[in-house]
């Protein structure tokens, strides 16, 4: 059953074996797996309930309704890095691009080697990935829905002999309508509100929307429940109180709000690592003016990848976005910007993310809000420059007339010669415009309680029965989009809870 704040006119008290905070990528997996085993589960989501019919292609409306703070979350630094977060049923999976990758074997081995994490070897994790992929309908993008923007990038990459291909996405019946990040209006993108959450609900889990958890309850060193407020949907203000007592508390509020809750409650931070080690996979975006008509908004917006440069810490992946989001990132203002926008049909766009070594931090800021800092290290800036250069090179190889690299002193490129100029030039972080979509790492798992927040199964070292099951737990960046990894690790934690905490 899925409840909304408006369903209640008095304070609510619940009790269950498991309470899950957050309904994004991690929370629903735990809720479904444990409910299916016959356990009573309550899942709490601060954002509104959503259904496919709520989605329209109006970006302003979508950002207001389905994103936290209208999509304005930002990490402060030079450069500042904006990174939007979902805030609705399904969390960020509802508004993401739907790209699915397993955690690369290389990363799993690195975690074994550098962090001593056992039991996560590629062959041990494989069944979890397979299980998740089946439930979320992971399928490769087919030519029918790829769109010309993706075709152009593949053409350029092929011309240069770069390893590339169509992405795998959680989708069934995708129509290639190009608005995944505003919420999929056809149900083709299988966000968790379309698979894990209905399954959890079918197995008896109760899902509450419009409920913000503010307090984690602890007794004799063990988590025993949560408290918070039922919010008024329009004003966002607390309206009523609720509490849930439970045997297990699962924190899955994402890599910013999970550490924030721990910091607010002054819990689980003996290692001093809560909120630290924030990684973002900062991304850049490059547009190109083509002779051919691209109509880039038709087709899957994030359809293809180029992984030729993964060893250099650069992964090229979509995204083409609507005119509202394209105009501001194109150079210039006034007549020049307008002229460019009137060639929108001929614009192609692609992005790239870097495997960051920078460590940002989430702190408790004013009025209980997160203060997020991320000062990019020079090595990562260099990767950003490479990411722009490789993307530009691909566009030129595909026949671009001009390329717009979002470098402050190079608003446009007219020949591949400038790609080399960029690579050999002195570029500062503040010369680039980054954006990010994958915050992670702020409650990292490890084998040493002195430098990690949770153990290899996501349980807090200090507070018994308190688990973290979201993007916070990764001890380094993944180098691929995180959703599937979050789900697979959450599934693994749920198995552990079942075996070690709930059985019998």
């Amino acid at each position, binding site marked *: 059953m899925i409840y909304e704040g408006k369903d209640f006119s008095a304070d609510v008290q619940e009790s269950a074996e498991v309470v899950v905070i957050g309904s994004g990528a991690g929370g629903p997996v735990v809720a479904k797996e444990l409910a299916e085993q016959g356990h009573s589960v309550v899942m709490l989501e601060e954002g509104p309930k959503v259904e496919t019919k709520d989605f329209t292609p109006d970006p302003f409306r979508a950002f207001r309704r389905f994103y936290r703070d209208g999509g304005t979350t930002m990490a402060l630094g030079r450069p500042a890095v904006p990174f939007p977060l979902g805030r609705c049923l399904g969390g960020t999976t509802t508004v993401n691009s739907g790209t699915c990758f397993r955690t690369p074997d290389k990363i799993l081995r690195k975690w074994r080697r550098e962090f001593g994490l056992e039991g996560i070897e590629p062959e041990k994790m494989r069944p979890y990935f397979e299980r998740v992929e089946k439930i979320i309908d992971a399928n490769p993008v087919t030519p029918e829905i790829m769109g010309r923007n993706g075709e152009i990038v593949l053409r350029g990459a092929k011309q240069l002999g770069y390893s590339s291909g169509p992405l795998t996405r959680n989708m069934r019946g995708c129509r290639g309508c190009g608005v995944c990040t505003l919420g999929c209006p056809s149900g083709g993108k*299988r966000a968790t509100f379309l698979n894990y959450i209905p399954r959890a609900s079918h197995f008896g889990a109760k899902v509450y929307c419009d409920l913000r958890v503010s307090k984690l309850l602890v007794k004799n060193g063990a988590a025993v429940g949560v408290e918070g407020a039922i919010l008024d949907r329009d004003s966002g203000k607390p309206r009523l109180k609720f509490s849930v007592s439970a045997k297990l508390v699962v924190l899955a509020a994402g890599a910013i709000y999970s550490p924030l809750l721990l910091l607010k409650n002054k819990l689980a931070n003996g290692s001093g690592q809560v909120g630290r080690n924030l990684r973002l996979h900062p991304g850049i975006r490059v547009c190109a003016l083509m002779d051919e008509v691209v109509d880039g908004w038709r087709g899957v917006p994030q359809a293809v990848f180029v992984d030729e440069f993964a060893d250099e810490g650069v992964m090229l992946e979509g995204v083409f976005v609507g005119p509202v989001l394209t105009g501001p990132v194109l150079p210039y*203002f006034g007549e020049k910007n307008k002229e460019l926008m009137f060639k929108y049909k001929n614009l192609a766009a692609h992005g790239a993310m870097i495997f960051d070594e920078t460590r940002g931090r989430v702190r408790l800021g004013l009025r209980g809000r997160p203060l997020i800092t991320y000062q990019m290290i020079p090595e990562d800036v260099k990767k950003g420059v490479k990411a722009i250069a490789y993307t530009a090179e691909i566009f030129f190889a595909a026949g671009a007339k001009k390329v717009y690299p979002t470098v402050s002193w190079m608003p446009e490129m007219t020949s591949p010669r400038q790609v080399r100029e960029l690579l050999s030039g002195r570029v500062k972080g503040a010369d680039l415009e980054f954006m990010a979509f994958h915050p992670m790492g702020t409650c990292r798992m490890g084998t040493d309680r002195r430098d990690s927040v949770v153990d290899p199964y996501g349980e807090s070292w200090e507070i018994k029965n308190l688990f973290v099951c979201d993007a916070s737990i990764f001890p380094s960046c993944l180098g691929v989009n995180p959703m599937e990894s979050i789900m697979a690790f959450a599934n693994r934690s749920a198995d552990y809870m079942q075996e070690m905490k709930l059985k019998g």
Partner: protein
Amino acid sequence: MPAGNGGLSPRLRKVLEDMAERIIPSGGPDYPGARDVHLADQVIEMIQSFPGAMRGFRAALMLWELSPLFLSFQFRTFSRLSPEGQNHYLESWEKSRFFFRRAALTGLKGLFMVRFYGDARVHEKIGYREGCLQPLEQVVPPWSPEEEGR
């Protein structure tokens, strides 16, 4: 639809209109611009939809109006500058060596463009049509227990 002035004085209203017109200038009938789509009204309407935001917006406009006095050597407020002067002033933000000034200009572009490029009249001119590559038949429903047997 015009949303009223949202409590903007005539002077602040002019600041807003001038900014909109510099960022997306109006041209001939085939080239709509800020004025053609009543962009200032649309922006006011958008700000008003965030409870309590109009006050901060008014303050920000006033700051912008006064900013040329201390950020450039033209001893005039923004609304008193000629259109060319306003363009030069915006250019000084675009080309600034300070990241935050450049980022602020991107933000300003975003503020106006979210309405302008969300406008159906503009979509028509730039050839943007929300369009699927595959026919929109039925919506794919959420998981249901019957699906397990499929």
